[in-house]
């Protein structure tokens, strides 16, 4: 809680967006083929991914600040391995991601969302929150290590949000009428992350959705972590 904005914003804004969308887009549930009667249940996946985007910014901005203040040098002057510095940074992001997941879940349950996959699904959801935070957090640390600037990291935020908005965030892909938008949402990995969470909430157990969601997270995490560790090495060798 040293930086309340870094904790409160990722908790409050996604919930606000959920409230606004649930009110405004409730009529969507009347569409033939809409997978649930509860739009809140459908939209509850969004805060999980939106929160992860905030995590990206937090991880990147914090690390960039450590670079700018020289604190990264202070940490790397200790005997610990340099990758541990990265691990520590991401550890914080993951903890925040899990706290967010608890809050979003509590809000969902409080407004009457039923979890079709049951308690085991909730555990899988936490595992997914872990993976999403790690994956997006690693992109944040990569941006910070490459640019060394908190402002540059924050400049990425709108770009990440574009990915969220051109996904199946507000409507299932099969119900999107506009072809280019449907194609963009299908090509957008964020759609599959949303659909993995959504499947646990409104479907139950959907192996394909979960495999795609976890697989995409794993790919992003592997790429993000590999490039971040390379970027750290390059930065320390400058």
């Amino acid at each position, binding site marked *: 809680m040293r*930086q309340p904005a870094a904790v409160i914003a990722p908790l409050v804004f996604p919930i606000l967006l959920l409230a606004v969308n649930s009110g405004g887009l409730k009529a969507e549930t009347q569409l033939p083929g809409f997978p649930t009667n509860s739009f809140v249940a459908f939209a509850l996946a969004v805060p999980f991914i939106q929160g992860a985007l905030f995590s990206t910014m937090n991880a990147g901005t914090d690390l960039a600040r450590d670079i700018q*203040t*020289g604190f990264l040098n*202070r940490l790397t*002057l200790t*005997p*610990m391995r340099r990758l541990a510095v990265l691990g520590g940074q991401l550890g914080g992001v993951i903890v925040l991601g899990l706290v967010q997941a608890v809050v979003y879940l509590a809000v969902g349950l409080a407004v009457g969302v039923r979890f079709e996959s049951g308690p085991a699904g909730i555990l899988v959801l936490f595992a997914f929150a872990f993976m999403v935070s790690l994956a997006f957090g690693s992109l944040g640390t990569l941006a910070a290590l490459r640019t060394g600037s908190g402002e540059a990291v924050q400049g990425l935020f709108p770009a990440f949000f574009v990915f969220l908005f051109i996904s199946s965030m507000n409507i299932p892909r099969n119900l999107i009428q506009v072809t280019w938008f449907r194609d963009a949402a299908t090509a957008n990995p964020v759609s599959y992350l949303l659909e993995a969470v959504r499947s646990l909430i409104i479907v139950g157990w959907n192996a394909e959705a979960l495999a795609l969601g976890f697989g995409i997270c794993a790919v992003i995490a592997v790429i993000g972590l590999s490039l971040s560790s390379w970027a750290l090495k390059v930065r320390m*060798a*400058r």
Partner: protein
Amino acid sequence: MDGPAIEAEGLVRVFKKTRAVDGIDLVVESGEIYGFLGPNGAGKSTTVHMLTTLLPPTAGTARVNGYDVVHQGPQVRSSIGAALQEAALDPLLTGREHLRLQASLQGMPHDIRRRRADELLHRVGLSEAGDRKVKTYSGGMKRRLDLALALVHSPRILFLDEPTTGLDIQSRTALWDEVGRLTRDDGVTVFLTTQYLEEADVLADRVGIIDHGHIVAEGTPDELKASVGRPTVEVVPLDAGEHERAAAIIARFGDPCGSEHGVAVRLRSSEADLAGIVRALDAENLKVEQLQLHQPSLDDVFLAKTGRSLEGAAEEEEGERGGLAMEPA
């Protein structure tokens, strides 16, 4: 530990086309204060960054506390403390939290961390401010906390990169006292970079003068000063018409040399001749407006070795760097 605390051979660091450090050889004995003196951009910080494992050398080898800086980084970092040019602190942590975090990262047991933090806060005069966030600290307080952080794990070797730059005279003197105490009482080896002649002169047992990535002179401050010449005495007669007579009198004590306002000689032996000069002037009834003894300074050494004064070199480097991409100095 047997052998020198710090050893470097042919150390080179190249940034794109700039050879920031160009083949440095160094030996710093255990327990000494080694002053690394040079203008901005001479290669001091780059050398420190290589010796503390923050930057890999482009060529050459270096051993710190017997460990190779390239292949034994964790061992090097365990045995050194470093306070870099900019105080490396997190503005959102308190001083005490910094110390405990540092102690934890150094692998110190939990019960010792608290005690060590209190002890170091007291030592650097931050006991009262220890629980305030660092963003509320003054520049001097940040420097002192940075020094405390470097000392958390009682390192045998301490690197201080321009530790007093930007500090007021009181903070500077306090830091000098602490560095002196560390060497005297705790036997810590100190590698100190500075662009202040006085700092090197007061603190260092030995001084290496670096310019354009090369060590141009090395020795004790007295050896270095002696190497560039003997003291000079300058006399300004009260009556401007007495210049020739004054020159003749003082010429008995040394070789005439240039003086802007009066006449001057480079003494043949030592400053003890000063008393003789005063007596001779008095005996000849020559009234003087000014009589000054000039000891050679480290700036004279820098001038003799590089052809420019340290102050002038700093300005020149600033000018050059203004047109260059920023790189570590």
